[in-house]
């Protein structure tokens, strides 16, 4: 993979060229820094401040202090909510694995791959409201899932998935996985487009079969994109899933599908307690940072050039 080591390309301090490079780097990254700092980081810092207050948005905030965190973190309802988030994380590997397989198949130009590629992506264009509605009909007691089960002879396995806590979460996870297939397939297809076909050929010549090629050659080369898809999927599981929950279950039954971001929304918007909402939001933010850093360490690319 590494070519001739003749020219040390990135030795810092190597005179004017290096300085020009650094300056260009700084210049080119300024727009992003400004935008993100002003419109993402600033409100987060403000939210930290508001999280320790009681605030309804338009009157003056009433200071509580860090005890707001201690009382919130010892709330058993919050623990139950976090349990839901943890369970949903289990859906992420599935939401990555299936698109990966599909992308590999499409890349190998299965018959009609262009058609399939477009078709698999189309659901991404549908709003969550519609997806949620269709899912509601699908999982209903007299819906398609039960009809299908009856058709294949499993009629005794009648389900009403959205009526009890954990099965509702499962239904939600299934719908979520379904909706992520399009996005992740595109990401992996883009990634596979960067693969050097000569490497695959070389492996084939060396006698590796398809499975070994996939596992030993393709997959490591795709690591960066898998990393990327992982981050996107986790973020979606934490944020976009909110819309699904909103339409399908409203957080119920019980606390069965109340995830932390739904909890944030509920406190801030449904109950008008923006201080509390900010508090849960900060907790959510910290969790996501931890998960994000965690996965960056887990999935390291082969050439050690990980982020």
């Amino acid at each position, binding site marked *: 993979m590494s070519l001739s080591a003749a020219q040390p390309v990135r030795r810092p301090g190597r005179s004017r060229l290096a300085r020009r490079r650094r300056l260009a780097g700084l210049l080119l990254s300024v727009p992003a820094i400004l935008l993100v700092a002003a419109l993402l980081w600033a409100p987060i810092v403000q939210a930290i401040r508001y999280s320790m207050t*009681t605030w*309804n*948005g*338009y*009157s003056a905030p009433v200071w509580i202090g860090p005890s707001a965190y201690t*009382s919130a973190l010892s*709330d*058993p*309802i919050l623990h139950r909510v976090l349990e839901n988030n943890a369970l949903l994380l289990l859906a992420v590997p599935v939401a990555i694995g299936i698109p990966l397989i599909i992308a590999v198949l499409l890349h190998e130009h299965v018959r009609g791959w262009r058609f399939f590629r477009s078709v698999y992506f189309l659901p991404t264009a549908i709003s969550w*409201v519609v997806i*949620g*509605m269709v899912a*509601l*009909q699908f*999982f*209903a*007691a*007299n819906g398609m899932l039960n009809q299908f089960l009856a058709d294949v002879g499993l009629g005794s396995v009648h389900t*009403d998935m*959205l*009526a*009890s*806590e954990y099965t509702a979460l499962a239904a939600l996870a299934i719908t979520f996985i379904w909706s992520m297939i399009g996005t992740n397939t595109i990401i992996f297809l883009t990634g596979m487009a960067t693969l050097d076909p000569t490497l695959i050929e070389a492996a084939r010549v060396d006698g590796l079969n398809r499975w070994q090629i996939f596992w030993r050659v393709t997959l490591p080369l795709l690591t960066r994109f898998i990393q990327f898809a992982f981050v996107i999927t986790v973020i979606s599981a934490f944020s976009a899933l909110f819309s699904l929950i*909103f*339409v*399908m*279950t*409203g*957080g*119920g*039954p*019980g*606390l069965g599908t*109340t995830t932390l971001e739904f909890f944030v929304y*509920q406190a*801030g*918007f*449904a*109950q*008008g307690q923006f201080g509390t909402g900010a508090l849960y939001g900060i907790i959510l933010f910290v969790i996501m940072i931890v998960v994000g850093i965690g996965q960056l360490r887990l999935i390291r690319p082969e050439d050690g050039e990980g982020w």
Partner: protein
Amino acid sequence: MRAVRMRRERAVRRWKIAAATAAVALLAAGCGSSSGSGSGGGSSNAPVTLTIWHNYGTEQNATALVNLAKAFHKLHPNITVNVVSQPASNYFALLQAKAISRNGPDLAVMWTGLFTLQYKGFLQNLKGLVPASALAQIDPNALKWTSDGFNAANGPYVIPLENQFYIGFYNKADFAKAGVTSVPTDWSQLYAACTKLKKAGFTPLVYGNGGQPLGATFYPWYDMSYMMIGTYSVSQWLGLYSGSIPWTSPAISAQLAKWNELHTSGCTNPDVVTNTNNLGQFESGKAAMMVDGTWDTQKFTSALGSKVAAFIPPYSSTPIKGVVDFAGDGLSMMSYSPHKAQAAEFLTFMTTKQAAAIINAAGLIPAIVGTSTSNPVNQQMLNFVSQDGMTAYPMLDNVVQGNIVNIGSKFLPSVLGGSESIAKALQAMQTTLQQLPANQRGNTFP
């Protein structure tokens, strides 16, 4: 090589053009339309535009509001009324956001009870702005729930649009066919009626999430209100707010147990939490009873004609003595409105007989003293109070804290459906209450 470079240059040029176009689009957007609620109002004859926001969708309340606006404009040709429909979800968050930036509507729909008090920070107290004579036209039972401490003398924040009932509807033809000769007034009579109706092939009492905004399960607070009517007096309901009557009380548990028994004994449909067609099933006569509210009365009378009648959900071990009769929503004035005088004129107009007629024509019950409703089923409900001596109760979800309402909405439907235990649901509500700061569960209403 040159061909490649030229292609690249063309690509780059194309991107430059795209970027430039986008920049122009952004500039154009930035200099684009800005909102505003019309010219400032000085004298009351200068042309003024009033903006009214509502979250009624396309339902009867919206029709009533639009017609009120039209009639008002005829009376005050210099005032144009702009009625804007807002999504129901996040409606109050939107109002709060506009209060922050102070560029929202002049009038907006506001729910009464604790909702009003929660948002009163940006609501205008109408004492002095709407003449006392006009306020006197309003059903006093309605007005008090929109004032501080629920005492009308403190001045209302909301002028109610209509009188609402949480109520039960039943199909007289189904009852006759099943041999149910009298309307049940307590739990045991209800069970007896259910048995007969089930034998005759009907769904006795249907539940589902039709009749709700998208995504919600059925709203359990109609039933919960009646279960609390069957247990406590109106004044005792303050105890539910303050916590002196904890949600985990045995009396409340017992009521929920009886309610759940409706499901286990087959009095209800099996899929109470996920059924989407409960309205359709009642309207077609397949279901004999349904717990709902006055917003659907006209829908039912159109579908079933004289076959539909109102009854009081008999969730009590002794004959039930109260009915939920409450003005659940109305219009309030934003404290930052630049057209307070004109907005007050509109609110005053809402208290006139002419307005009452418009409201009635839309199938609603006016909250104006001395008016009646032309829908016979609505009239039946008014008679419960005026003739049958039923005590008027507020809507329970308007007088307990919003957090409780939210957590209850998540657990209680499953209590009926049997997938959540009563103890767990009540404990969740109680825990939520205890987590609230002290000023949100005081011994008096705020």
